[in-house]
């Protein structure tokens, strides 16, 4: 029997990051996948990043992950979204050549030392009597031993495809489902849920009349995802925008009885974040039109993705409604839109390390935890990989909290609040978003990546230099005084209030409507540092007051996170807690008072009771010791 430290089940976006993290941290790692040709597949939209998701990709990169690097190398269009809404919510999104991305990620796995890749379906996980992971069994009955197993099975567990009145067992993109693993895990006591998601049709480029649509171009210059990518120079490919119309909506309404969503055929919980076009028409009956984006699937293919037209209608209805859209009158389908139902785990069973509370050495990451999206999956993947490796090495776990990263918000939401639908990361979910910006992901996380060994010395030294440059520039701007004689013409030109005595450049920069590049007019000593470094200095000065305020909130937050709830606490026996709180606490077993406070159904008064209880236990212990 072949022995591994870590076995990763599935080589999607979660599995790849998990396997790479574990192998790069020096552990003997294997990744098993149903099909080697589907490594890092994007069965839905051919893009990476977007609001909040772009933050995740940057954070993965700052920790030493792979997604950002592969995206940079294979992107065919890039945009920085939200330029007008403020730097905290700037978000990178890139259209990706899907096949190239897969090839590059596969090759990265192939060339990674300590990592074996093997085409297998894992059918069961083997445990010791103490519920500790020993290994896995494959469909060919091969057995492998492992100290940790990371499940990253995406939407493949007992997957079922639904297209109108037809449905069959099947995974995404015509791949096989994994029918045995979830059943076997359920028998061992793991709680499963059934979720649903969907994807629109892929159509032939030549059948689209782009002259009837508006082109959506990328930004220049391209800002890379990875802090290590220097520069990206490519010819960007446009996307196109068109709209549904009354005719489209009529077709859908007329055929609603044939939609499995409304006839009751689909039982899985659907996503608010990716509603099907039927859902949109029914829920927002007043809306006269919905946007439809046409996105290229890559350079070497004519397949186009039709964003906004996800559907589980029968094929004939799909074609009829697509054809009613301007520019798609003669559209030729290549793959139909479908809905997919699959098994996933209730994430409340997991610790913040993504290890199961009751199954030692068993981890889960990605859509198998009830999330949605490639970036959410990859973020969990890298954290599961890191923590499986750290545990085997007997090192402290790496848990990012809500004030440190979107990754922290994502995982904390999943394991503390659970989810009733595939969970999408959103800016609105992050309470400390002014300090969790995409531009400072490296400042927040690269030291941690270095500490655990995912960031090498060379990159770390560069990073320190960057931090130093930013710090110095901020100091310089704060010190540098500008006389009214120089400043006032500058202000007058911009309809800004003039001054009577000197003003620092930092104070000028803080004014609304003035940006760093304006300073060149009044300052000939601006140092020759990188654009990102200047931007960072600018943001830190402009946001200073707000950043300070958020840091104060974080301080409050940390206080509660630091009050730990020892694992042996029996919440059911704590007098004074309300029954609802007892049940919820017992089920979720929060590790800190802060986490307990985020559980729905636990009131502030319950938290006070818990606080007193912890204090009581401490004092009892002390009295015994004395």
């Amino acid at each position, binding site marked *: 029997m072949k022995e591994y430290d870590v076995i990763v089940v599935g080589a999607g976006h979660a599995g790849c990051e998990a396997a790479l993290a574990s192998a790069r941290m020096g552990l003997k790692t294997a990744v098993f996948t149903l099909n080697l040709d589907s490594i890092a597949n994007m069965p839905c939209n051919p893009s990476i990043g977007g*609001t909040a998701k772009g933050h995740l990709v940057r954070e993965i990169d700052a920790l030493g992950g792979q997604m950002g690097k592969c995206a940079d190398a294979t992107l065919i269009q890039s945009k920085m979204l939200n330029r007008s809404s*403020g730097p905290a919510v700037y978000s990178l999104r890139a259209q990706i050549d899907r096949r190239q991305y897969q090839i590059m990620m596969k090759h990265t796995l192939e060339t990674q030392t300590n990592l074996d890749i093997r085409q297998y379906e894992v059918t069961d996980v083997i445990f010791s009597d103490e519920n500790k992971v020993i290994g896995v069994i494959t469909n060919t009955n091969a057995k492998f031993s492992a100290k940790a197993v990371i499940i990253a099975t995406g939407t493949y567990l007992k997957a079922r495809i639904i297209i109108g009145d037809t449905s069959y067992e099947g995974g995404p993109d015509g791949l096989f489902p994994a029918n045995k693993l979830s059943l076997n895990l359920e028998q061992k006591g793991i709680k499963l849920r059934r979720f649903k998601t969907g994807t629109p049709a892929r159509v032939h480029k030549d059948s689209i009349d782009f002259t009837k649509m508006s082109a959506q171009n990328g930004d220049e210059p391209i800002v890379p995802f990875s802090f290590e990518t220097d520069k990206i120079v490519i010819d960007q490919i446009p996307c196109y925008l068109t709209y549904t119309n009354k005719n489209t909506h009529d077709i859908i309404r007329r055929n609603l009885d044939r939609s499995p969503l409304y006839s009751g055929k689909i039982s899985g919980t659907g996503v608010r974040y990716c509603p099907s076009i039927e859902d949109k028409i029914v829920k927002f009956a007043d809306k006269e039109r919905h946007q439809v984006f046409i996105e290229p699937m890559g350079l070497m293919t004519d397949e186009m993705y039709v964003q906004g037209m996800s559907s589980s209608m029968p094929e004939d209805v799909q074609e009829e409604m697509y054809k009613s859209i301007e520019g798609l009158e003669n559209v030729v389908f290549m793959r139909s839109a479908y809905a997919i139902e699959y098994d996933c785990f209730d994430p409340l069973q997991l610790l913040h390390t993504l290890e199961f509370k009751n199954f030692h050495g068993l981890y889960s990451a990605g859509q198998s935890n009830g999330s949605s999206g490639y970036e959410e999956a990859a973020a969990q993947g890298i954290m599961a990989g890191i923590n499986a490796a750290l545990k085997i090495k007997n090192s402290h776990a790496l848990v990012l909290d809500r004030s440190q990263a979107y990754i922290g918000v994502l995982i904390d939401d999943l394991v503390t609040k659970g989810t009733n639908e595939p969970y999408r990361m959103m800016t609105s979910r992050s309470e400390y978003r002014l300090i969790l910006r995409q531009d400072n992901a490296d400042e927040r996380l690269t030291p941690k990546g270095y500490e655990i060994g995912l960031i090498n010395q060379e990159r770390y030294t560069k990073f320190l230099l960057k931090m130093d440059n930013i710090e110095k520039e901020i100091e310089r701007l704060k010190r540098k005084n500008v006389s009214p004689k120089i400043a006032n013409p500058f202000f007058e030109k911009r309809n800004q209030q003039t001054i009577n005595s000197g003003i620092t450049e930092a104070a000028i920069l803080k004014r609304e409507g003035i940006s760093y590049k304006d300073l060149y007019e009044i300052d000939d000593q601006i140092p020759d540092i990188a654009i990102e470094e200047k931007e960072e200095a600018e943001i830190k000065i402009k946001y200073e007051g707000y950043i300070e305020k958020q840091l104060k909130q974080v301080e409050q937050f940390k206080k509660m996170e630091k009050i730990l709830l020892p694992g042996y606490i029996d919440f059911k026996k704590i007098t004074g807690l309300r029954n609802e709180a007892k049940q919820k606490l017992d089920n979720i077993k929060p590790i800190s008072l802060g986490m307990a406070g985020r559980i729905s159904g636990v009131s*502030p*008064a319950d938290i006070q009771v818990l606080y007193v209880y912890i204090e009581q236990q401490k004092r009892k212990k002390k009295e015994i010791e004395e």
Partner: protein
Amino acid sequence: MEHTIAAISTPVGVGGISVIRISGSNAFSVAKSMFKSKTPFESIKSHTVTYGTVQDEKGNTLDHVLLLKMQAPKTYTGEDTVEIHCHGGIYVTKKILAMAYANGAHPAQPGEFTKRAFVNGHIDLMEAEAVMDLINSEAEDTYKEALSQMKGEKSLQIKGIRSELIDLISHIMVMMDYPEYDVEKITAKDTKEKAEEIAKRLRILIEDFDNRRIIREGLNVAVVGDVNVGKSTFINRACGQNRVIVTDIAGTTRDVVEVKIDIKGLCVILKDTAGIRSTDNEIEKIGIEKSKEAIEESDAVIYIADINRPYKDEIFNYIKDMNKAICVLNKTDLLLENERDKHIKFMERDLKKIFKDRIIACSLDKKEGINEIFDKLLDMVNAGSIRQKDSVITNERHKKHIADAIKYLENTKEGSFIDMLSVDLTCAAEELGKITGETASADIVDRIFEKFCIGK
């Protein structure tokens, strides 16, 4: 270090003196900024009593008080503690508490003084469980109290304003989370204007809070009984013999007549209710509902019956705690002289099981019984069997949250990008949520998907 807390630690409106307690690392600085005495605050020795005055924000004297300064650790909570003993009037007491809040103290959470005492080792380990029980039961009281106060117009207003705020935030968030979808754009300027509009409404609400609160606070006494038993006569007589503070209280929409009178220093609000009886008449039904509500909200009940008629006991079903009820058997003047004592005894026999010694037979028409009724009421207050709800504290807490929400809304003036504004707005919504018991983050995400059609 935990923040400094303040609360009124004596039953409000009862007794000649009220005590405001402030505890925490900033207790001394909070007290110092509102207290004037011959001895400078720093020089006051620990565990001594000092005479002085409390000043409001404009420097006007609010009250002459005794201040007790106690340095940690030898205090109840184990923290620096200040107690201000003031004259027991509701207005002054509240105002002093409000000054403590304005100077940096936070409203104390249910059971918080005791909790701190325990955490700092000032309460025995054995008592920890009692402390834990206390917290949730006090929270429940506070919550119930908040609910009963929040019923009606004001609660709808706060909820409405909060909902508008959530609308605004979700609009911003949907723009930030879905920048490419065709939702109407909202600029930083629009946002600031909207925030100011909401702040303005909150400011009006807070003024209203202050005005109305003064009128509404006191011991709530529901006057109940069948029709034509003499409820109105009782109220008229009560007003005639006592100082009337307010009649026909503004802002009440119910069909309940309210008067506020001063009875030997105790502020009492008498509510005349419609008679309770089974009826098919729609209008009367509404009146009865209001009566039930009045009983529910009351601290004590005065039940009036006509001694010449058989009494109806249906109403007893609505009085939760009969120990807080007084029975008046009215119209003794209509009884025949020779049968009077016998008849009274007969009527009292059954009622005694329910009202014990709190039965008064009299003729309200002849101006009898009023003093006895109020003496019984005062006895009950003094014996502690009826206690006024701590509405003042709840109210001050609400006011503090509204004031904080306003502060956050005002902060938006400084922000230049909508991402900055969104954080202040969310904090404001969180503050209002502390009154209505809702959390903002989940509401915002829900609202986004309720109101906007987005998603790929």
